[in-house]
């Protein structure tokens, strides 16, 4: 083992092993609750403050975040989350405000939302934005409902039943289109890993409602025929949807709106440095061109010159996709990030993200296979086929990287690359870290196959048995033998 990384390990008890009672002693007066609805017992542990803090401190030490180290998880943009934005998001002016307060008492929050809508419009080249969706996939869902509403208003929804997308699309794209009631048509990419124009022409028709695309695509390749793509889609009477997961590559360099996309969603938890929190909360605002503005979810935030207000008076709106107004706490972090970086900083961030990606790509190609073209944007996808010859899978490589103190890249996606390794270093990393990661990737090529296949050795636990987890689901402590 050539790494000094050792993750903390505790045999941390689960909560009911710390305290496992279930009795409820205090009587509930029948003046406040009908007796037939009174609860008899409840197995919720009651811990002391020190027990709670030690439990979660131990657990946190067995968890790897960007604060712990390099996290090149492709498609997820695991950039550093500035601490000042966290601090601001914790202010009582942010957290202790009720959504139904009179608008005169939330002017600060409304101003922030109004300005953020404007910033996002400028960054993506769109005309209007709704901040309501709670995540990227949620923004896609809102976007697909906007597609629906648009075709419905022109009486074409009946026949425009299909959403077309490339085989490199994120899984959420087809899932969101299906959830909005569309049939999904997937087209194969061309040999460059880009949209095959002939396949696209063949796939679109008067049945097509929209084409969904991310640009740069999930291989990290900029779709340089984007204007032709837009032309084909629009000629068919369909809308062009931009999956904003990869926006971090092009801030200040190009805008989806200028590429003739009609709808975009943003992942504030990727591009705008709000933390991922182990899975969320995120935020997935949706932006549109002027002709689609009437369909945005209600309410939007407007300003009449003196005061900011919620606008619910939008008769063509798709309605609400979430309670209240969106994940406001996340919006605060994204707003602060945009103001911290500003026009120049955002552009520099994208430039450095692309530079870091190409620097690392150049260090690794030749050692690992790089399918498709050389020049990448914020991320690149290698194939683990060289290891396959030694009987080692990309999954094993990923686990071995953990031993070196790095989080693994995204693996087995996109599907068109065999044993895919999708690496997104982000702009947050310095050359030393990139070099160390490259060195680890090269060192693994020299490792004995069994050392790789038995990895990880230095994480809190050894290789997890996920087959057992699926075969015999133990999903709560109610499923434990002792509890039955």
């Amino acid at each position, binding site marked *: 083992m050539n790494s000094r990384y050792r993750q903390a390990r505790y045999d941390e008890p689960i*909560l009911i092993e710390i305290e496992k009672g279930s009795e409820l002693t205090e009587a509930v007066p029948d003046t406040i609750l009908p007796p037939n609805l009174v609860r008899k017992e409840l197995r919720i542990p009651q811990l002391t403050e020190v027990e709670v803090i030690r439990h979660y401190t131990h657990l946190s030490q067995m968890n790897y*975040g960007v604060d712990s180290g390099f996290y090149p998880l492709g498609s997820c943009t695991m950039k550093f989350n500035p601490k000042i934005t966290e601090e601001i998001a914790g202010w009582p002016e942010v957290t202790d405000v009720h959504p139904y307060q009179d608008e005169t008492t939330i002017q600060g929050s409304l101003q922030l939302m109004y300005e953020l809508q404007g910033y996002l419009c400028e960054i993506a080249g769109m005309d209007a934005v709704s901040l309501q969706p709670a995540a990227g996939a949620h923004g896609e869902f809102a976007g697909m409902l906007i597609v629906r509403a648009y075709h419905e208003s022109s009486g074409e929804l009946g026949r425009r039943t299909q959403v077309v997308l490339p085989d490199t699309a994120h899984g959420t794209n087809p899932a969101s289109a299906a959830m909005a009631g569309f049939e999904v048509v997937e087209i194969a990419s061309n040999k460059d890993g880009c949209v095959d124009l002939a396949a696209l022409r063949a796939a679109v028709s008067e049945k097509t409602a929209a084409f969904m695309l991310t640009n740069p695509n999930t291989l990290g390749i900029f779709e340089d025929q984007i204007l032709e793509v837009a032309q084909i889609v629009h000629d068919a009477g369909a809308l062009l949807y931009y999956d904003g997961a990869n926006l971090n590559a092009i801030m200040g360099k190009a805008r989806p709106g*200028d590429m003739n996309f009609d709808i975009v969603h943003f992942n504030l938890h990727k591009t705008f440095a709000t933390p991922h929190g182990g*899975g969320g909360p995120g935020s997935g605002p949706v932006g549109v061109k002027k002709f689609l503005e009437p369909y945005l979810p209600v309410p939007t935030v407007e300003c009449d010159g003196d005061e900011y207000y919620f606008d619910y008076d939008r008769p063509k709106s798709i309605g609400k996709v979430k309670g209240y107004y969106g994940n406001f706490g996340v919006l605060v972090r994204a707003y602060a990030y945009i103001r911290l970086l500003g026009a120049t*900083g955002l552009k520099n961030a994208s430039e450095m993200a692309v530079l870091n990606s190409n620097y690392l790509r150049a260090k690794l190609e030749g050692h690992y296979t790089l399918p498709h073209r050389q020049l990448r944007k914020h991320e690149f996808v290698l194939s683990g086929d060289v290891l396959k010859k030694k009987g080692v899978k990309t999954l094993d490589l990923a686990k071995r990287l953990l031993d070196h103190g790095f989080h693994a890249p995204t693996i087995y996606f996109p599907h068109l690359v065999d044993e895919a390794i999708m690496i997104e270093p982000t702009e947050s990393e310095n050359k030393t870290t990139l070099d160390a990661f490259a060195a680890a990737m090269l060192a693994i090529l020299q490792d004995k196959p069994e050392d790789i296949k038995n990895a990880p050795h230095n994480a809190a636990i050894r290789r997890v048995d*996920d087959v057992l987890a699926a075969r015999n689901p133990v*999903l709560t402590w109610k499923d434990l033998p002792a509890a039955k």
Partner: protein
Amino acid sequence: MQEKPSEPGVCQFNFEKLLPGLKEKPELLKGAGVKTIDELFVDIPAKVRIDSLDLPEGLVECELSSMMKKMLGANKTSRDTLSFLGAGMYPNYVPAVVRAVTSRGEFVTSYTPYQAEVSQGMLQALWEFQSLMCELTGMEVTNTSMYDGPTAIGEAALMAARSTKRKEILVPKAMHWEKKEVLRTYTLGPGLAIKEVPYEPATGQLDLAILKAMVNENTAALVVSNPNFFGVWEESATELKSMLGDAMLIVDVNPISLGIARAPGDYGADIVVGEGQPLGIGPTLGGPSFGILTTRKKFLRDMPGRLIGMTKDAEGARAFCMTLQTREQHIRRGKATSNICSNEALCSIAAASYLSLQGRSGLRSLGIKLGQKSLRLAERLRRVAGIEAPVFKSRHFNEFVLRSKTSIKSSCAHALKHGILPGVRLKQRFPELGDSLLVTVHEGHDDSDFERLATVLSEVVE
């Protein structure tokens, strides 16, 4: 609050601290095999390339802090006002422990735990969260969260339609409009029909006779909130399942009530949903929070969202990992049970730490306290001439509807001048209730607060 320093150079932390490559550009460019940054962007067609964004330039950290303090200072917080707002978002006290737990950088800055071996902390915490939600609701399985309460209802309706292969969802007329509107949006895709079951005018509870007549072979599910939007307990909740035939019973809960209230799993619920915000999360203008969705094992493969399972590692030690992912979008794509990917995991951890500290006894006491306070406040407001409180002759949890003989709108405007937010006005959404207000008690309220509300309302009413 930090003032902008007069001395230049004192406050110098700007975005360059976030972009280490700016200082290493020459070596990085050389390594990447290019001479300039522009060469890395030649694949973008010239026609769509831009030089800059029309945005303000960046601020140094202390300027940012001052600017945002000033902007957000225009807000009034619950500390600046006496608030009786609720209606789905409840400003319960959030103990400092919760912030300490959810500020751990290792949790905050991690992604979805795809690499289980280095993510055991988040995985165990989320597995414990699943256990806590199932204990609270009396159900068998749950995911690690939905976006919020309303979207959880939307997902539950889609799930019920999938499971029953039916297309009608019954909801109470008195369901919160946020929930009703989100449910409508969520069901546009499969084209489900939403039908409203009226409430009894005297009690505010679901009209069972009409419900019975509405249930038929097209009914996929009934959604019922307990306590309902008016703060009223649905006393017949335990009889609902038997009235539904093969349709599913979806019970929407306020989780903070489950220390005193019977678990819906105990009276036949097929799916339990709820807004998680009351469990240790600030209202934050409505988000982020999380949505609860728990169900029975027989519906496991129809349910949306991410699941954590307990398993073993290669040495036989206890371990946790994401499981049953073949339901999810990254595997199943267009055929997934839902498109959800990012969820609200950190808010789930907030709730789990809140519940561990509060414990069953704490939750029990809090529930009793809230019930008694709303009873006491209603009694006090009844003594104000022209006010009827509560409007519904039923037992209430933490909120109730009052009706006034005079304009509630002017009462609220008057109260606001005194720093009081008396509640949520209902006239627009429930015109049949007249000049009505949904008033919510919080655990921090005491009798002097009730007195202040009564006084300010009487000044307008009398």
